[in-house]
């Protein structure tokens, strides 16, 4: 008689897989985001250095930075009067929690969020320009999630 062998996935792997699935889901949502603001591919918006930009080749260095950046994206999207981003926001919050649980699994200290007063002030003063800021934020969030999916397995640092 054959004996069936069972194996349970390691919790960390399971959590990482969930994070990747959620990030992929969010990427699809961003692509499907029916924003009425369609930007020409020849137009690049500047002056938004406060929004995390992962376009550089540098890999994500730590779970803490991921948590922090996700928090920044959440702050931006929740502050701006951009339509139809509620679910994306919920995904980001969910992803933050998953990253936090990953950090806990490797015994990282609780993450202390950085002072985002400057960002809040910027968003407060520039809410009029929600179309450009929202567009850039979603675009950069999408790229950031892509990089997160690629680098998540290598993320060992707090």
């Amino acid at each position, binding site marked *: 008689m054959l004996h069936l062998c069972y194996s349970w996935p390691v919790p960390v792997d399971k959590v990482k897989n969930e994070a990747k699935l959620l990030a992929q889901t969010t990427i699809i949502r961003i692509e499907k985001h029916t924003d009425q603001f369609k*930007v020409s591919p020849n*137009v690049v*918006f500047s*002056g*938004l250095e406060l929004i995390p930009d992962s376009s550089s080749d540098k890999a994500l260095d730590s779970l803490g930075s991921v948590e922090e950046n996700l928090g920044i994206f959440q702050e931006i999207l929740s502050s701006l009067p951009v339509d139809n981003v509620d679910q994306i926001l919920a995904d980001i919050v969910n992803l933050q929690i998953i990253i936090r649980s990953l950090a806990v699994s490797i015994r990282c200290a609780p993450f202390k969020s950085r002072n985002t007063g400057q960002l809040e002030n910027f968003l407060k003063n520039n809410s009029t*320009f929600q*179309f*450009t*800021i929202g567009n*850039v934020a979603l675009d950069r969030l999408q790229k950031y999630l892509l990089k997160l999916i690629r680098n998540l397995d290598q993320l060992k640092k707090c």
Partner: protein
Amino acid sequence: MESTTGRGGSFEKVFWLLCLAASLQAGAVAQIFIDEDANAFWIPPWHFSLSCNLYNETDAGINPSQRSPGNINKQTNKESAMNPHNTDLVGSGIWNETRCHLWSDINSQRSLCDDKVMEVFCLNILCWVDGNLSHLTCNLMPSSRPRGTSMLSTVRLHYEISDSSSEGLSGGHREAVIPAFESSCSGEKALQCVIPGINMNYTYTLLLSVTHHQSRVEAPAMRATPGDLVKPHPPRSLQYEMTPEGVSRISWRSPEPAPYDLQYEVRYSANATEKTWTNVEGVLEAYVTPGDLKAGLDYTAQARCKRDRRPGLWSNWSKPLYIRVQEVTYIPATVLTTAGSNVTVYCVFNNRSPSVKKVVWWLNASEKVLEKLYSVMNDHVSRVTLPSVSPSKPRGYHLLQCCQQTGETSDCNYRYAQIYAVDVNFLISCETNGYQTNMTCKWNPNGIQLPQGSSVRFMYRIRNDISCDALQDDLHGADAKECQLGVHDECTFQPLYLYFCHIMWIEIHYKLVTVRSHPAYVTPMDVVKPDPPFNVKAEITQTEGFLNMSWERRELPVYDLQFEVRYSGEEQDRKWKTLGNVYNEQALMEVADPCVVYVVQVRCKRHNGTGHWSTWSSPVNTRVNDIRAPARGPDFWRVIHEDTVTKQANVTLLLKPLNIKEVFCMVKGFRVQHQTSSGSTWSDDLSSTTDYSFPWTEDFHSVSVIAFNSLGSSTENYILNVSRHARKIQSVQSFRASIVNSSCVALSWKLLPDSPLPESFIIEWEHQKKEGGEEEEDSFKWVRAPSNQTAKYYLYDAFFVHDEYRFILYPIFPEGEGWPETFYINNKGDNGRSRGEGAAYILLLIIAFLSVVLLVALAISQHQMKKLVWKDVPNPNNCSWAQGVDFKKAETIGNLFKHHKRLTSGLLLLESERISEAVIVEKMKQSVEEKETRVALDVSLSQSHEPQQDSPPSEQHSHTEEEEREPVVYPESSGEPKIEYATILPSDLYKQQKSISSSSDEGNFSANNSDISGSFPNNLWEVENQSCIHLAQVNPQMLRSFNSSEGFSEASEDQDDSLLDEPCPERDIYYLGQVSTEEEGEKEKFLKEDAQVPCQDSRDETGHEANPLLSCHSLLQFKMNQTDLPQKSSRLYMPQFRAVSNTIPKITKAQK
């Protein structure tokens, strides 16, 4: 508490102050007299100091009137007192060796007390008039340095008012009230003395008295001119803006009130923590244009003001203005305009580094603005003019950006200008109420989005001099007014000028821009919405069943009205029917069903003029009553069910629903009246309105169905007579039917010339189910046709052109039913014949044709078989398996079979599904010429054959007996089939297996032990593909076994029975052949070369005539065209071995 009294003429022009010390503990009193105007101290608009020595009150307990004016150190020159550089002693009071000094230094912002050596105390004093020019306030700050400061307990201020424009006193002694909370006069707290209600044209003289314990000091007299002491309010509403030329500008508004010219001072700083102010002084305009503001930095700016070129105090600094200098600034940042207008926007690059020559403009970040539409103003300013801007939907505004072009990429700052292009075609609609006392107008915002800070106004004008028709865009008159909108943003005009023209439009204000919509011109009389008719009544007339309605109208409006009526049944999904153009206050209309409740509503509008429809009146319902007794009972027909065993019959009456007009209005129920041949009568009330059953026991039974309601029963009723022994009258000569289309069938019949005319006809029609379909009992439909119907009668129902239908025509006589006629319509083109006749006709044709083909084929193949088949039969002694076998011995066959006993048919067949090619051939005992054309292909086996079918297959079954049986003659057969089986079918698998293995080994037919040529398809009996079908004239007695061998292998005995029982004339009987896969090529060859393939055992010399072997191809194709076999032919072949036992005798016979 105390009083101050002027003394004699020498003191007439002296304003003196009396300071009384109201000690917290005791409240001592002291008085000071200052007698010379020339010695008064003029209060400067900056800080000055008072330092004194206290004197002992006990030593100085004299009357204040005894003070010597000479003891006061006099100020000799007023102007010198105002000299900011005069830091000398300007005044002193000496009393019992006590001296007081007033010090003033315009340049000193710190306390002068710190610089003076004083013995008792020192006060820093600042006096000013507030920005509202209503109070003179002096702030007294005790110095903390000297030892006696803490000993100060009470300060009292007296002042005297004089009109500076005249010489005499105009006032008197007044006393300033020191706020109680400051009366402690201790510590570091400042004391504030307020003189309210000042007059800017007066001069005020003040005298201070300070008391501490038993000591007091009196200050020299101080004079104040309010106009020189004004401290204005700070500038307000500071704002930062950029000029179209790219110049930064900080502007503000002057304080109010400002009775004279002001000068300003502005300071700004880029550092929020350690401010390094940059000051701009001597500003006479209400703005500055700082040129050193840098992009990307946050600045704080403030401004203050004071009286220009005259004494006065600086105001406080204004509220800070926070400036963020953006890299790109759009002027204006927000544009509100009407759609279709041109819009001009400036773009300023504040960092000055990029060249505006490389600037491109983008609209909505997706549409590049044409280069010819923008231009360079200077090295950091670009201007664009967008022509005819489209409405900005759905975002609400257009995004306009100026970007730096680098290659193909445009680098755009995230900021943009917002262009609100409003489509101003707002629809303004008005309604005047029915009593014409007010008009309410609304406008449709049409989903516009407006910039923050904008306001919408509903404007109107009323013209009494011209009609609306003559007005052409008369909009912006001076008498335009704004309407105060109601809770629903509606504008109401009340009272109303019915024939004045009301012009209305919408204005949108944003900053200095005003956008106006197109005006609407409304005359209130043209937009009256009358009140709906009232007192609406509705009823169904008793005689005609019409819907009769009436209503009343209001007195206003007075002009003629037209009405519209709508009514509907009370069903949930209400479908209204409308009656329009009613000009009276009454309407009568025919309704489809007078016996239901109707809901009726009425509305009205102006006749021959403009106006609105009123709302619908409140719904009114009609009532339903029995109008009269039902006129006619329901039509009905019967179905008779007779039990052949018990001989009991039941009659079911099928009722047609009554036409509602015949009923009028309600039918309470139906009643069946019976009358039998025995004379008994009775009646039953029906519980069902569709059918009713009763037993039919007597020879004659007459029934009628009556409808009744509260007013009576129907008088015209149908009667049905059923009789068992009455002769049915033959009256119909012919009856035909044809399908006209999918919903109509045309029926026609012809009566016999001398037959009586029926009362009516009943037509039954029924959809004939296809094979396998379940017959539904009483699934037919029926209709009654009038008796005078001589031409075609059209029957309407859903008919499928390709299906079969049966129509039966019953003539109905007063005595009962006549002889019915039946007609079938089917899809085979044989309309006009009954199915039995048609089938027989077809069968006859098929059999005739097949017989001819069979005869020809047999004749040809018989000769060929003789020549070709016999010589190619292999000698079985050459086969390996036959070595040593004596085929002449009878038991050899049995041995051979035992040799393969362990093999199972199932496995064999599964393993070699298509092993061999086999042909079943038959032997015809009689000559071809003797065969009848009607072969018993369509013969259904009668029950008399059952015992033979059920007889178990037996090896011992006597073939002799089989031969001796009389062939059964079938009534349907036109001739007697006299065909015996010549084909030998193995009864068990051993024989088959042997045959198959022989074929496999040698690649040819084996005839060692059987005269059949191994025709056993191994798996599927696929007629379409591989079967070879032979027609045979069959002995009916053998038919069952023949059928069993056909390959209906899945059919069980029961199924066989069912097949046999089924009177299906189309059933044919076949010999079938099948080739194996391996030999498919040979098969093809076989089919092509036709007669080259032997189909019988060459050794069967005695019992087998070489039957002509027909071409499988040709015969197969023929059969497929004629019959419908696919389902049966696809059944598994294997189980047929269980049913072929009847052929065993034949085998024996053949082997003989």
